[in-house]
């Protein structure tokens, strides 16, 4: 079984983003970029399934500018066998990303697609579900456990009230939550080796997809800043402030 994994290039999660002074967008110039953390978890899960003999090949897929090759190389250093870059400039909306994955999933006859649950830049949480709807294949979102058993996969999902397990017929789409696994680090020799792994470039036009704009970005602003508070010296003072000043207890 082939596994496709989504690898999105995003701002490093440790970096606090700044809004451009003309309010057109956030400023990503000279910003440290990385693999979206949820995609790292997806790559790790796919590699473990290959190590367990369940997957035959792991293919990392990214939709974005040529700079995303850096993240695809990292995915291959971690253990993905090859990579596909769908070249596109600027922000690509989730529905267009999902359409690209649907085409590649069909071309590659993938048995499982593992994506992150959420991009930490756009905070959309959409692509996996959209892909499942477009391909009419079952979805297991926000996964904290994935067990492949023959022609089905059991997925334990993190839901609002706790955990829910569903069983999906393969091919299926899984999106990762934080507790699915702890991603490994790429080792230097593997980073060298990854340079020789194959990477294909394609485009929306090559895939036969008409890119549509659904959502227009009008303005980006910094959120209202909180007023700085005060330090209190003791528990007594804290209780007094909460009672008399804030009136919340």
């Amino acid at each position, binding site marked *: 079984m082939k596994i496709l994994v989504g690898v999105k290039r995003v701002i490093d999660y440790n970096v606090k983003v700044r809004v451009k002074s003309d309010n057109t967008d956030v400023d990503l110039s000279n910003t440290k970029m990385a693999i979206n953390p949820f995609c790292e978890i997806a790559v790790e899960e796919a590699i473990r399934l290959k190590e367990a003999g369940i997957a035959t090949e792991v293919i990392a897929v990214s939709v974005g500018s040529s700079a995303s090759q850096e993240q695809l190389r990292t995915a291959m250093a971690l253990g993905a066998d090859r990579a596909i870059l769908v070249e596109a400039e600027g922000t690509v909306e989730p529905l267009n990303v999902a359409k690209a994955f649907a085409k590649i999933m069909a071309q590659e006859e993938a048995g499982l697609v593992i994506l992150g649950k959420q991009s930490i830049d756009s905070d959309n949480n959409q692509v996996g579900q959209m892909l499942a709807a477009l391909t009419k294949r079952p*979805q297991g979102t926000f996964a904290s456990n994935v067990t492949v058993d023959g022609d089905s996969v059991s997925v334990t999902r993190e839901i609002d*009230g706790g955990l829910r397990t569903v069983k999906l017929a393969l091919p299926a789409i899984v999106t990762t939550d934080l507790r699915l696994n702890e991603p490994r680090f790429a080792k230097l020799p593997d980073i060298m080796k990854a340079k020789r792994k194959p990477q294909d470039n394609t485009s929306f036009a090559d895939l036969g997809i008409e890119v549509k704009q659904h959502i227009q970005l009008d303005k980006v602003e910094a959120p209202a800043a909180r007023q700085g508070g005060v330090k209190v010296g003791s528990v007594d003072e*804290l209780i007094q402030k*909460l009672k008399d000043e804030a009136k919340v207890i």
Partner: protein
Amino acid sequence: MATLLIAEHNGTELAPATLSALTAAQQIGSDVTVLVAGADVKAVADAVAQCAGVSKVLLAEGDSLAHDLAENLSELVMSMASDYSHIMAPANSVSKDTMPRVAALLDVGQLSDITAVLSGDQFQRPIYAGNAIATVTSKDATKVITVRAAAFDKVATTGGSATVESISAPEANSHTAWVNDELSKSERPELTAAERIVSGGRGVGSAENFALVEALADKLGAAVGASRAAVDSGFVANDLQVGQTGKIVAPSLYMAFGISGAIQHLAGMKDSKVIVAVNKDEDAPIFQVADYGLVGDLFEVLPEMTEKL
């Protein structure tokens, strides 16, 4: 055209998030129809019908809707989608699972987690863990939207007199089967609905020590929350995680013990009315958002506070 809002409930009761999402839905300016779907949810539909500003309630009951499976719920929504210009739901684990499917099947985009309705097609939503607020315009004929409940006031649960109309449930999708649920049981208020929250982080140290956090929470009638580090370390269950990728809360009082204040955690709680932080590191970033900060050892502060309240 009208607006369709999908109600959040636990099978027997309407979730407060629905009341906040109703405010957002009413700001669109059209009639609001509420869809209540589940196995046996007549009581929820009756409660929704009483809410202020609801024009109509659609009640869909059936086995295929028992476990909120997105495949079946999106099928149900699609069967009525052409009657609505806006399809909305409070952002929760069911709508996050379902609504992008509806959007894809309609070939439209989705607006996740909106925090303001500027007009029928212009909205605001946080991006980059709430470090930026985007104003966006939907260019689609049908708008598919999830609503951040914490950003909207709740409508009144009385004053309405909408009719309840029963509709049929879809066939169950054969590719997906529900296996089981392991739901957390707690007598405490639900995190996203609580007026007060006491949260613990890595500094709490262990699952046993979390009893100190719980004791203060019980004294205050508060819900218990946690940072990702506390959840990953196994101190508490995953559904208590507050943050960018956990639950978004905005209670009157949020108290953080042994939480450093990473941007991902702040994303989930910085809109709380009053924030208290207790941390032994005086430079912890959490103090930058705290109304009241106390530099100290949580193992001393927690018991003292619980005792003195």
